[in-house]
């Protein structure tokens, strides 16, 4: 396969905050500028821009991608916004990959932004509008429903306890203590804290859930030739995958995210990964709710079905475990400005693989990492595999 190789050469982000003063386009600019500065590029070196942002309702601007274009560096440039719900943040990296791998672009800036606080009075209410307008919205569903329904089914199918799941929230909020962008890093949080937090939609409790957030993240992608002029430590895009399941989510097995497995298999095949449990050294699965990290580790084939809680309980997924998971602190710890949170995971891999993750650095010089996001009506999986070794 003679494919054009694509490298990640820079990354930057804003803090994740509950309410930002900056406008959405100013947040995008802050992240994009930080990413360009991290690799010493001016905007004139960028050939194209990919924007990732989820519902327009949050920022409160119709055709939000157009509105965000100047802050994302898109003035006068080919600029394209994609979305696949919550999977958008990782997908925009895949989109930047195909921009560069096509041969049409040498340097592409991927920017993901969400300003959820603009939905007023409460961002959660926006989620009513993701349900089917005729067959579901009249029941006045909220986002917690689908998570709670999926979590309950997962627990019921495999006999998993709330306590098993709460360990994920504890791990991620503790990891986030070392993330300079984090909203919810808590060094001393315990499983009891999670289990005693307010019940929102049983089995979902307050501390099982990531927060409503504002923020932006940007990552710079370059062709092999361009990357060689920018950095001597490129991190390579080894694989990408994405997959969208049926919209009829009540017609699906809610205990297992098959769409994540399909996306992962697409990425593994491209990356030449045959034994993911040995070959993936650090993983950033999507964790908007704590059980989702477990669900996704299974879909990524990094744990047997229903067995991810055991890995967590054994410490395998701790930062210094044998398969560190969400060393960034994830959405539960750093925050969840939807698409920005996904791209934050890709940025985290970049920093981890370059040994630049500071207090979050996982030991053992990881050579390959995987970032994954999820979204829509428990429906989409998006996967990016980065590594220090140049693809064949």
């Amino acid at each position, binding site marked *: 396969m003679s494919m054009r190789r694509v490298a990640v050469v820079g990354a930057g*982000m*804003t*803090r*994740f*905050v*509950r*309410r*930002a*003063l*900056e406008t959405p386009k100013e*947040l995008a600019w*802050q*992240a994009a500028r*930080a990413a360009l500065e991290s690799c010493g590029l001016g905007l004139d070196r960028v050939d194209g821009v990919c924007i990732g942002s989820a519902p327009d309702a949050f920022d*409160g601007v*119709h055709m939000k991608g157009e509105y965000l274009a100047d802050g994302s560096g898109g003035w006068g440039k080919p600029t394209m916004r994609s979305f696949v719900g919550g999977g958008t943040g990782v997908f925009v990296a895949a989109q930047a990959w195909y921009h560069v791998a096509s041969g049409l672009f040498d340097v592409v800036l991927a920017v993901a932004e969400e300003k959820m606080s603009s939905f007023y*009075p*409460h961002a*959660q*209410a926006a989620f*009513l509008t993701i349900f089917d*307008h*005729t*067959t*579901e919205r*009249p*029941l*006045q*569903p*909220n986002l*917690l*429903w689908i998570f*709670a*329904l*999926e979590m*309950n*089914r997962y627990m*019921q199918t495999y006999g998993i306890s709330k306590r098993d799941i709460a360990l994920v929230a504890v791990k991620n909020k503790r990891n986030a*203590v*070392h993330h*300079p*962008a*984090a909203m919810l*890093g808590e060094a001393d949080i315990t499983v009891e804290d999670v289990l005693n937090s307010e*019940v*929102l*939609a*049983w*089995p*979902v409790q307050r501390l099982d859930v990531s927060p409503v957030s*504002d*923020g*932006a993240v940007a990552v710079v992608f370059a062709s092999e030739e361009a990357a060689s002029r920018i950095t001597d430590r490129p991190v390579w895009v080894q694989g990408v995958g994405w997959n969208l399941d*049926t919209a*009829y989510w*009540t*017609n*699906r097995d*809610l205990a297992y995210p098959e769409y994540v497995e399909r996306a992962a298999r697409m990425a593994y095949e491209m990356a030449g990964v045959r034994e993911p449990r040995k070959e993936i050294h650090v993983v950033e699965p999507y964790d908007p709710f704590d059980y989702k990290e477990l669900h996704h580790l299974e879909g990524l084939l990094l744990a047997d079905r229903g067995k991810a809680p055991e890995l967590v309980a054994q410490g395998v997924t701790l930062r210094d475990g044998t398969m560190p998971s969400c060393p960034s602190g994830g959405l539960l710890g750093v925050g969840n400005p939807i698409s920005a949170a996904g791209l934050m995971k890709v940025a985290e891999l970049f920093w981890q693989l370059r040994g630049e993750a*500071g207090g979050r650095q996982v030991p053992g010089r990881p050579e390959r990492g995987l970032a994954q996001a999820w979204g829509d009506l428990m429906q989409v999986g998006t996967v990016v595999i980065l590594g220090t070794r140049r693809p064949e």
Partner: protein
Amino acid sequence: MKERTAPLPATALTEADIAGGRVLSVQSRLRADYAWDAGLAIGRYLEGLQAGSILGVHCRRCRRTVVPPRAFCEQCFGPMDAFVPLADTGTVNTFSLCYVTWNVQRIEQPLIPAVIDLDGTSPRCGILHLLGGVRPDAVRVGLRVRAVWKPAGRRQGAITDIRYFQPVGRGS
């Protein structure tokens, strides 16, 4: 305190900063009204609900009966128009006890959303609806339930023509 290598951008505000006018803000409300064409399959579904019946649809090639109905089979891509009335009984596939409304109001008596696998469909072909007429602590996965309909004269061809599902055996 958190370790900070270099401060990252973005300025955090409190609600009081905005509500109190320490920073400027402006509000808008979108006026977005729609009349979505129900079309063939959902049109039939709504018609059925108004008549007190839940319609599914059957794919002859895949030998699968699904609900809500659709005019195409997402598995084989063939057209699908064999509408079949389903029983209004089913089994709770999963459920939640939800103490928050869609617009984030706290409620004392939980809403009980559930995925209900209706009798007569292929495995794992449920619909989203609410449970009622049952104590929250008595709900479990596998519970047998039956639709509680609005009176015929008050049905309008909507998913809410079913008020909720309640355990089989309770009079309705």
